[in-house]
C-alpha cells in the first residue's frame, strides 16, 4: 500500500464533550511518542461542564502536532480534523488548512444535529467542504455493527465510536495499537465487556482503513523518527510537571510541603494531582477561600513547612494583602498563578499572559518579591524547583507564572534522575546566642528562619514595621526607610544569583531580538528559526526571571537594533523592559484567548525588519 512520507502533521480530534475525544487524543499521543516522533499537544475543552449534546459550545477537541524534527507548538493549522458531529465540523473547519483532510462521522448528520449546529443545509452536500478532501464514514453505524454481538445497548455501544475513529487514524499514520489495547484492558479491568467492546471498535476502525477503497487522492502517511536524546521518556502536562517539580523541590530541601488552595479554573489540576501524593510528604488543604489558602500557606511556612498556594488571576488578587505580610515578615512562600483570560471572570478556560503587572506591581506599598515563569509543560518542573530554592534561600514569597495553556498542554519529557540533583536541606536557626529575628545574612540579606518549637528563639513577628537590629516593632522613620531599602535590595540582589540571560536562537547581537516569556516560547522559537533560515538577523531571547531580571539583560538587549516583545496581553513585559532599560521595545499583542500562531510572529518579525530597511 502506498503511504505518503510527511515531515510533520497536525491532527485534531473533535466531537461532543461526551464523545471521548480527550481519551482518543491522549492515546494517539502515547502511540505517536512510542513511534519515535517529537510532539506537542493541546486539549481544548469547552467552558461548560456538561454543555447540551450537539451544540457548538459543547465541542471538545484535542490537537497534536508530531514530526521527525523538533516540535515546539501544537501547530498553527491542522492537516487533518476528525469530526464526530456537525457542531464539531462547524467549530473546527476554520482550523483546517485548505486542501486538508476531514474525517466525518456522517451518522450524526441528522436534521436535528444540523439544526443544533446552526447549519441550514448539510455541509456534506452544499459545497461547504469543496476546498477540502473529505472522508465520509458512518462511524456510528460501523461502530454499532462492530460491537453488536456484545449485547451492550445502543448508548453504550456508541460510546466506542471514539475508539473506532482512533483505530482508523492509527491506520492512516501507521501507529501501533498495542499501547491503547493495554490501556483499555487496564482501564476496564473491572468491566471486561467494555474493554472488549472498545478493543473491537478500535480494531474495526483499523481494519476498515486496511481494506476499504479510499478515494484516489487519499493515502496513508508515514512520518520518520525524530532525532531524540536517548533516555527514559513520558508525556507530561504542565500541571503534572509543576506538581512533581514542587514535590521534588521540597524533597531536595528536606521539607514537608503544605499546599493550600481553593478551586479555580485552570489552576485546580495541580490541587488534584498533589492531593494524591501524601506519601511524598505533601499535605494538601482545600481552604474556605483564596485568602485562607494563602494565609494557611504562610502559617505553614512560619511553622517550618514549605507553604505553597496556587490560583488564577482573580484568586491571586484576593491573596494580595497576605502577600504583603509574607514580604514584611520575610517568610518563604510559593504562589502559583495559572493565568487565564480576564479581566474579572473573563474567559476562564482560555489562556492569556495578562497577570504580569499584577505579579510584579500588584500590591499596596513598596512590596518587592520574586516573579519567575514557565515556558512549557516540561519546563514547569525545573521552574518549580528553582522557585522553591529562591524562596527558602532568600526568605521571600515567589510568584510562579504559568497559564491555562501550559497547564493542559502535554509534551514528551525526558525523565530526570533525581539522585543526580543536589540535596540542600534547609537550615533552621537553633542557636539562641545573639539571635535576632531580623538580623540579615550579609550576603543574601535574608533573615534567619526560626520556627516555633525551637527553645530559646521565642520571638514575635508580624506586619508592623520591625526594627532593623532587634526585630521589635518600630515606628522610627529612618528605620522604615532602611527596612524598605533592604527589602528591595534583597530582591534585587537575586539578579546576581540567577543564571545570566541567554539567547535561545541566534547571536548575542543583531538587527532584531524577539523577547518573550512564558508559554509563547514554542511559537516564537519556531518563528525565529524559520526567518533565520531565510537569512534574517534575528534572535530569540526568552525570560524565565521576570523579577528581578537577569543582571546582564539590559546589556544584552542593547546589542540589538530593535526589540520585539510578543505577549498574550496588551503589552506588559514590553512596558517593564522599556521602563527598566529605556529602550524602544515594540509590542506584539494578542488577547483572543488563543496562543500565538507561528505565522503571526513570523509576519511581525518580517514587518519590523522591512520597516527598518
Amino acid at each position, binding site marked *: 500500500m502506498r503511504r505518503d512520507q510527511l515531515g510533520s502533521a497536525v491532527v485534531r480530534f473533535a466531537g461532543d464533550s461526551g464523545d471521548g475525544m480527550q481519551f482518543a487524543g491522549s492515546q494517539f499521543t502515547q502511540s505517536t511518542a512510542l513511534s519515535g516522533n517529537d510532539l506537542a499537544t493541546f486539549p481544548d475543552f469547552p467552558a461548560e461542564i456538561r454543555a447540551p449534546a450537539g451544540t457548538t459550545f459543547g465541542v471538545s477537541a484535542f490537537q497534536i502536532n508530531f514530526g521527525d524534527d523538533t516540535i515546539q507548538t501544537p501547530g498553527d493549522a491542522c492537516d487533518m480534523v476528525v469530526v464526530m458531529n456537525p457542531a464539531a465540523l462547524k467549530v473546527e473547519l476554520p482550523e483546517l488548512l485548505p486542501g486538508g483532510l476531514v474525517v466525518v462521522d456522517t451518522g450524526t448528520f441528522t436534521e436535528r444535529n444540523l439544526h443544533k449546529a446552526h447549519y441550514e443545509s448539510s455541509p456534506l452536500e452544499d459545497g461547504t467542504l469543496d476546498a477540502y478532501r473529505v472522508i465520509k464514514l458512518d462511524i456510528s453505524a460501523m461502530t454499532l455493527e462492530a460491537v453488536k454481538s456484545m449485547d451492550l445497548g445502543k448508548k453504550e455501544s456508541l460510546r466506542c465510536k471514539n475508539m473506532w475513529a482512533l483505530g482508523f487514524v492509527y491506520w492512516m499514520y501507521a501507529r501501533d495499537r498495542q499501547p491503547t489495547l493495554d490501556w483499555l484492558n487496564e482501564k476496564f479491568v473491572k468491566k471486561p465487556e467494555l474493554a472488549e467492546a472498545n478493543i473491537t471498535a478500535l480494531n474495526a476502525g483499523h481494519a476498515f482503513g486496511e481494506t476499504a477503497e479510499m478515494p484516489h487522492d487519499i493515502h496513508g502517511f508515514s512520518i520518520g523518527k525524530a532525532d531524540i536524546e536517548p533516555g*527514559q521518556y513520558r508525556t507530561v502536562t504542565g500541571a503534572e510537571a509543576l506538581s512533581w517539580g514542587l514535590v521534588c523541590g521540597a524533597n531536595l530541601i528536606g521539607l514537608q510541603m503544605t499546599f493550600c488552595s481553593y478551586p479555580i479554573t485552570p489552576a485546580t489540576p495541580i490541587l488534584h494531582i498533589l492531593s494524591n501524593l501524601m506519601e511524598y510528604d505533601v499535605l494538601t488543604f482545600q481552604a474556605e477561600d483564596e485568602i485562607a489558602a494563602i494565609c494557611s500557606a504562610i502559617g505553614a511556612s512560619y511553622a517550618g513547612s514549605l507553604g505553597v498556594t496556587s490560583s488564577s488571576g482573580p484568586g491571586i488578587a484576593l491573596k494580595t494583602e497576605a502577600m504583603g505580610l509574607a514580604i514584611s515578615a520575610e517568610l518563604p512562600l510559593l504562589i502559583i498563578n495559572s493565568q487565564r483570560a480576564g479581566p474579572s471572570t473573563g474567559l476562564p478556560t482560555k489562556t492569556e499572559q495578562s497577570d504580569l503587572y499584577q505579579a510584579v506591581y500588584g500590591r499596596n506599598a513598596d512590596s518587592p518579591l520574586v516573579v519567575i515563569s514557565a515556558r512549557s509543560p516540561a519546563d514547569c518542573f525545573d521552574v518549580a524547583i528553582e522557585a522553591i530554592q529562591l524562596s527558602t534561600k532568600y526568605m521571600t514569597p515567589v510568584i510562579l507564572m504559568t497559564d491555562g495553556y501550559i497547564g493542559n498542554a502535554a509534551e514528551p519529557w525526558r525523565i530526570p534522575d533525581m539522585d543526580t540533583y543536589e540535596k540542600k536541606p534547609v537550615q533552621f536557626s537553633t542557636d539562641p546566642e545573639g539571635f535576632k529575628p531580623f538580623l540579615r545574612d550579609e550576603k543574601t540579606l535574608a533573615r534567619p528562619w526560626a520556627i516555633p518549637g525551637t527553645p530559646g528563639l521565642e520571638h514575635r513577628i508580624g506586619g508592623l514595621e520591625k526594627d532593623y537590629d532587634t526585630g521589635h516593632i518600630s515606628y522610627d522613620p529612618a528605620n522604615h526607610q532602611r527596612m524598605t531599602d533592604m527589602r528591595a535590595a534583597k530582591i534585587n540582589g537575586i539578579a546576581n544569583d540567577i543564571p545570566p540571560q541567554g539567547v535561545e536562537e541566534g547571536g548575542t547581537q543583531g538587527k532584531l531580538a524577539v523577547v518573550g516569556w512564558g508559554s509563547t516560547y514554542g511559537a516564537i522559537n519556531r518563528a525565529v528559526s524559520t526567518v533565520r533560515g531565510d537569512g534574517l538577523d534575528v534572535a530569540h531571547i526568552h525570560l524565565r526571571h521576570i523579577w528581578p531580571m537577569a543582571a546582564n539583560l539590559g546589556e544584552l538587549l542593547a546589542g540589538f537594533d530593535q526589540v520585539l516583545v510578543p505577549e498574550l496581553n496588551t503589552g506588559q513585559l514590553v512596558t517593564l523592559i522599556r521602563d527598566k532599560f529605556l529602550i524602544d521595545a515594540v509590542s506584539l499583542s494578542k488577547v483572543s484567548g488563543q496562543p500565538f500562531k507561528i505565522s503571526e510572529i513570523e509576519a511581525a518579525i518580517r514587518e519590523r525588519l522591512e520597516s527598518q530597511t
Partner: protein
Amino acid sequence: MNIVTPVNELTPKDFATDQEVRWCPGCGDYAILKAMQRTLADIGAKRENTVFVSGIGCAARFPYYMATYGFHTIHGRAPAFGTGIKLANPDLDVWVVTGDGDALSIGGNHLLHVLRRNVNLQVLLFNNEIYGLTKGQYSPASRAGTRSPSTPWGSIENPVSAAALALGAGGRFVARSVDTMQKHLGEMFKRAHDHNGTSFVEIFQNCIVFNNDIFADFTAKDIADEAQIILEHGQPLIFGKERTRGLRVRPGFFELEAVTIGEDGVEEKDILVHDETNRALAGMLALMEPPTMPVALGVLYCYPTPSYEDGVKDHFDEAKAHNPGGDINKLLRRGHTWTVTG
C-alpha cells in the same frame, strides 16, 4: 492527695515580654493578659511550644506581650494562619487571639471554617462590642441603637451572638467569661487548652475608652449575682445572691425560663441540671440576655470529636503504609513511559 511535681518552674512573669504594653490604661485586655500568663505557668506550658496568633485590632497586640512565639497577622485571618501552623506542626499549642470586629466581621468566614473543621487550637474572642483601634465605630456585636462615629443616628443592625454563631458553625467547645473574673477566666483557658479540637472562648472585655461599661448590665458588682449564671457540668442551673434563682424548661414550651425556687410552686428538683454535652441546651443558654434572663458564663458546650489534624495524620499514615519509602524517582516514572535508545 496527689503531690504533683511541677513539670517546669516557669512563673507568670516568665511569660511576659519586655515590650511596653500599649493598651489604654484601664483596658480589660490587661486582665486577660494577666490571666493568660498565670494560666500558662499553672499548666506548665513550654514557651517554645506555644504560639499566639492574632489578626488586627486592639486585642491583636496580645502576642507582643507573651514571651512565646507570636505572629501578628492581617485583619480577620488569624484562624487561617493558625490552621496552617497546626498543619505544619500539630505539636504546637496555638492560641488565636481575636476581637469582635476581627472575628465576626472581616474574618467571619474563617471563624466559621476553623470551628467546622475542628482544628486543634484555641480561639479567644475579646468581645468589647466596638472597634477600638480605629476609634470607636460600631461592630457586628454592637447592640442595635449603638451611637458611634459611623452611626450618629444609632446602629440599625442586629448584633451577632458570638457563642451562638460558634455553636452553629459546629464548634465542639464553647465557653464564656469576663475580663475581670480572673479565676474563672483562667479556668476557661485551662479547659480550652485541654480540649482536643477547636475551643472557642468568648471573653466580655471592657473597652474603657469607646464602650465603657457596656457589659455593666450583667457584670456590675451589685447586680452580677442576679444577672449572670455560672455554668458547671452536672450541677443545677442555679444563680442569684441567695442561690434561689434557677433555670427550668417553661412547661409546655421549648424554651428556658428563670424562676425562683420556692415561688409559684417551683421546687429545686424542677431546676435543670447543666449538661455541657447537650447542644440544644447550649444553644438556649447562649442566647439568654438580661433583663429577663441571666447571661450564661462558663463552658456552654463541650463534646470532643477527633480533630482535623487527627484526620490528616490518619490519611498520612494510610498513604505511607500504601507506598512506603516515597521514592520520588518512582513517582516521576508512574504510568506510561518509553525509552529512546541512542
